[in-house]
């Protein structure tokens, strides 16, 4: 079992909103590891594979996101999700 942890700041102008969130959860679901996230300074973690939970965080631009994964492919999962956020979800905005 491996575990990984990282953080990344959201730069997309509208934050982690519907379109970026769909890309995020879809990517998370491609990894067998359990992945969770939270906004920096928040207490509660949520499942990174649940669009309902991720959207409920209402993470805006400028927020730092903490990522944690446990299980098969934990390192790859965290790196991939971090990359997606850093690349502004592959959108121009």
């Amino acid at each position, binding site marked *: 079992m491996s575990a990984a942890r990282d953080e990344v700041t959201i730069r997309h*102008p*509208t*934050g982690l*909103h*519907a*379109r970026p*969130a*769909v890309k995020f*959860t*879809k990517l998370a679901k491609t990894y067998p590891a359990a992945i969770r996230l939270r906004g920096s300074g928040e207490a509660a973690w949520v*499942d990174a594979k*649940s*669009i*309902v*939970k991720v*959207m*409920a965080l*209402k993470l*805006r*631009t*400028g*927020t730092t996101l903490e990522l944690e994964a446990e299980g098969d492919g934990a390192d790859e999962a965290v790196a991939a999700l971090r990359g997606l956020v850093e690349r502004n979800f592959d959108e*121009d*905005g």
Partner: protein
Amino acid sequence: MAEQRYSGRPASPGLVIGPLHVLATRSAATRARAGDAAAEHARLDGALGRARDDLAALMATAGTEGEEILAFQVELLDDPALVEHARAAIDAGEPAAAAWSAALDEQIEGYVAADDEYFRARAADLDDLKTRVVDLLEGRWPDELPTVEGTILAGRDLSPSGFIAAERARLGGIALAEGSAQSHVAMLARARGLPMVVDLGAVPTGADEAILDAEHGMLVTAPDPTTRDAFAVRRRARAQTEERAVALLGSPATLPNGERVACLLNVDDPQSIEPALLDAADGVGLWRTEFLFLHRAQLPDEGEQYAAYTALLDRLTGRPVAIRTLDVGGDKPLAGVSLPSESNPFLGLRGLRLCLDRPELFRPQVRALLRAAPGRSLKVMLPMVSRASELAEARAFFDACLEELRGEGVEAAMPPLGMMVETPASAVAIDTFDADFFSIGSNDLVQYTMAASRDAGGRVAALADPLDPAVLRLIERVVAHGRATGLEVSLCGDMAAVPGCAERLLALGLRRLSVGPAALARLKLAVHDHAG
């Protein structure tokens, strides 16, 4: 069947005649529980599976924007976190449809309560998904959809997936009794150039043909022969106008007497403007900087603002860019800035009033502007000025910031400092203001002069008339002051983009007009054809 007229608001421009297809109004039927919990779970599974298939089929024909909207709904359907609430309710004795509705309503509530409009707008997507699954559970067939190309689709409101499904038949237009110009459906309609009118007040009945006039926000059902003829004339004229306007876009605008008229752009987010339009404009007559500030967790700092300002200035290489300082009030929340709750924010602490009241908000913007000025064709204009002392106070603030920057050894310069003329007070006493240039903000000037909001609808909106003699006399006064002093006067606002209004402004002597990107070609045509 006699001709009938419904009046609403344009959400996407255009003018079209076609067969009318009216969507049935849904009834909120609830159905008794069909069986035990296991049977209800199975029914829910069936409906969710079918909804997923239907959405996937819709996505295949939806186009990029539509596909992204539907992808969010599919992702929600696949999320156990959503379904488990419905499952729990079924176990507690609820029928599947009620359980699903309640689970979605709980989510929708969270979105409706969000203070960010991007999140609020998602409530419509969740509602769309709720209805789809409930309809399947209750055995209601989806609305019968139009099959004839060019059909005008009418109804109370329209969901994004309903729009995408109906668009397969290639609609001619959309006419809604309710709806909003800010909805996803309106966004999709504009992206496809499909005429759309909202807020018609009633769903038309009993007619099978209609004219949709999305220039004036009007639906005419069962048009009589005179109306048809008038429509045909307008439609021909519109098509010819578009063609001629586009042909003129690339060249400088000159009046028939050879006089040049500066045709400028009103800009929000420069990213959203077609590069060809940026190239075709004589400059930017109004850059609203609010887009940098709104919907943010943190306000943009001096560095970010400097980068944004210089990027557009450098893109326009030497053509003037008039940047308006932050123009917000109690109706537009800013991150980390507490604004007084006012019963009428439009007569409250907004625009320059707010900036002078909150130097910590104003200083980074002023410093960024002063730093962007050297070697660039920057002009700065101040919004919502009522009396000369406010302008003097702002000027002193700019001077102090310039001193500060020079003290730090930072390169900076004082750009021309002008003001918006949007309060009747500033227009009446225009000679008392020590501004380097004036820009008439016609939207606010009309509303404040007529004491009538354009958004009010009906009788009130009709009063918000840019061609009212009171408004025209104020504009005339400002133009005369500019002529007497040699100071530049321009006008930025929807007025210059309304057919018929641009001609009046040219006749009043204005030679600098600034319009939204979609209206630039038409403004150049109005200049070209001007008879004065």
